[in-house]
């Protein structure tokens, strides 16, 4: 795409990024250069004939300039990311050093946020569906960890979603949680009186542990709409990236770092995507027509790109033997983690410290970082090498879906083998909440003995395991 980058700050950083992404870029530098170039019909800007203009104004209203540029460049879409709003929604937005050194006050995070906002607004075709995550998006907290009663609803955000529904926007719920049985946390959470949204407000509810892209496709089929009519909102950058990678035609705007701004964020979404909802029936017909072809492409993309996608995440998983310094975090995980937890044994700091220092036991920690940043210690495994037995296997729900568990399992197998031991058993105690760990065990090439699915030990370890993250070297 031919993009002109204009504004009142140094813009070279944006130009660099766009060029690297394969766009042709025109950069107007110098004080008020954008105005002069817009007014001069023989300027470089007019010769360049941009298809899109990114107009970045810091500390000034961009409205007048946007109108001028739009009038002078009728062949271009002029988009002015709202710098002040993004600054409120993005932590670490300003970098005063850069203001002094480069006449550009933005941090790397800010640059990324402005670029994301630009492409998000540029793609602001009318949409009909708002697909919403639950934990961290509709409320503060994780219902399967904290309990349905303990989470705090984002009331303004939910009311905003409800208002969109009343105007005809279809709401879809996409949540990784146990399915909505009568006693399930998701059902209980939406039944709360202080929760503005109820489950019945959603035209389609997909709550399970499967990837959200596949669930969204299924929801779109049942609603008879194409995925290109969907805006997907999720506080988790991993889920957003996964959705973008698998269903590139779904609009996936960035979510504010501080959920206090999420209601305001929803209003901006409304202006960008839903302002024409209900205006024409043609929109609906067109979406249905494109659906079949589009979904085939999406499905192909979904199955073909998972490995590439994990590769592109630059996921690194670092294994280490636990030390005393890890004890508080290990005890915290033991106390809080329910979903990917083999036995849900709640070990306190003293017990954890004893295990870390016990020469007959092994405690491994797994730290992860990816393209989104450092996640820290998100998984640990405790084993008894003499018995070839894993007694504890715990991973934070934040880290699920990245195949880290396979890396951890393989690491433990290798380390035990190095000591002359063979991994033979994994202790497992099913609970109402550790379904994700049970699903993992089903995929491990173990055969099991005992009264499955009550407390069992699994025996025999052979064969290969699926894709695992590459360890860093």
């Amino acid at each position, binding site marked *: 795409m031919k993009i002109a980058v204009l504004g009142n700050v140094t813009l070279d950083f944006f130009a660099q990024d766009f060029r*690297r992404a394969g766009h042709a870029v025109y950069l107007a530098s110098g004080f008020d250069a954008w105005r002069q170039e817009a007014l001069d019909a023989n300027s470089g800007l007019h010769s360049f004939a941009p298809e899109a203009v990114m107009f970045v104004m810091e500390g000034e209203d961009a409205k007048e300039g946007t109108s001028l540029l739009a009038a002078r460049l009728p062949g271009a879409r002029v988009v002015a990311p709202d710098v002040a709003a993004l600054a409120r929604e993005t932590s670490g937005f300003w*970098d005063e050093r850069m203001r*002094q*050194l480069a006449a550009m006050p933005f941090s*790397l995070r800010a640059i990324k946020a402005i670029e994301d906002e630009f492409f998000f607004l540029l793609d602001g075709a009318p949409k009909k569906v708002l697909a919403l995550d639950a934990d961290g998006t509709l409320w503060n907290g994780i219902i399967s960890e904290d309990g349905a009663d303990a989470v705090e609803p984002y009331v303004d955000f939910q009311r905003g979603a409800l208002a969109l529904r009343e105007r005809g926007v279809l709401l879809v719920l996409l949540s990784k949680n146990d399915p909505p049985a009568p006693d399930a946390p998701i059902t209980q959470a939406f039944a709360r009186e202080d929760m503005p949204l109820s489950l019945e407000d959603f035209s389609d509810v997909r709550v399970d542990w499967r990837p959200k892209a596949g669930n969204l496709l299924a929801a779109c089929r049942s609603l008879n709409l194409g995925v290109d009519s969907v805006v997907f909102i999720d506080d988790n950058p991993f889920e957003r990236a996964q959705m973008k990678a698998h269903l590139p035609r779904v609009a996936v705007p960035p979510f504010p770092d501080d959920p206090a701004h999420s209601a305001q964020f929803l209003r901006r979404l409304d202006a960008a995507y839903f302002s024409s909802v209900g205006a024409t029936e043609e929109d609906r017909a067109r979406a249905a027509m494109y659906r079949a072809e589009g979904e085939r492409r999406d499905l192909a993309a979904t199955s073909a790109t998972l490995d590439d996608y994990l590769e592109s995440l630059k996921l690194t998983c670092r*294994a*280490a033997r636990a030390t005393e310094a890890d004890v508080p975090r290990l005890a915290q995980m033991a106390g809080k983690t329910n979903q990917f937890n083999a036995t849900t044994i709640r070990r306190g700091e003293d017990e954890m410290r004893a295990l870390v220092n016990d020469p007959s036991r092994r405690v491994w920690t797994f730290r992860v970082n990816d393209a989104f940043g450092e996640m820290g210690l998100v998984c640990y495994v405790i084993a008894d090498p003499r018995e070839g037995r894993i007694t504890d296997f715990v991973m934070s729900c934040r880290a699920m879906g990245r195949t880290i568990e396979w890396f951890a399992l393989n690491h433990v197998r290798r380390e035990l083998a190095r000591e002359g031991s063979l991994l033979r058993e994994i202790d497992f105690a099913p609970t109402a909440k550790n379904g994700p760990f049970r699903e993992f065990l089903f995929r491990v090439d173990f055969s099991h003995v005992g009264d499955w699915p009550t407390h069992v030990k699994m025996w025999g370890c052979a064969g290969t395991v699926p894709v695992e993250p590459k360890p860093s070297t």
Partner: protein
Amino acid sequence: MDDFLEFAAGVLGVQRGTLTPQTEYGSLAEWDSVMHLRLVMETEARYGTSIPLAAVPQLRKLADFAPYINPKDNS
């Protein structure tokens, strides 16, 4: 430092082999003043450090970044 050179090559968009600890700011077409500041910010993000304003002009060679790179646990 090897890890940093590889990282810097990625930021600058050059082949890993073109960089040594003695490679200087301005010696490569790709390493201009804007890219220099990007390298500073990317280094901070990658290594979790903060480079003070006053120190930025002192960063002339890649080796000068050494105090700010603290490789993460790779065990």
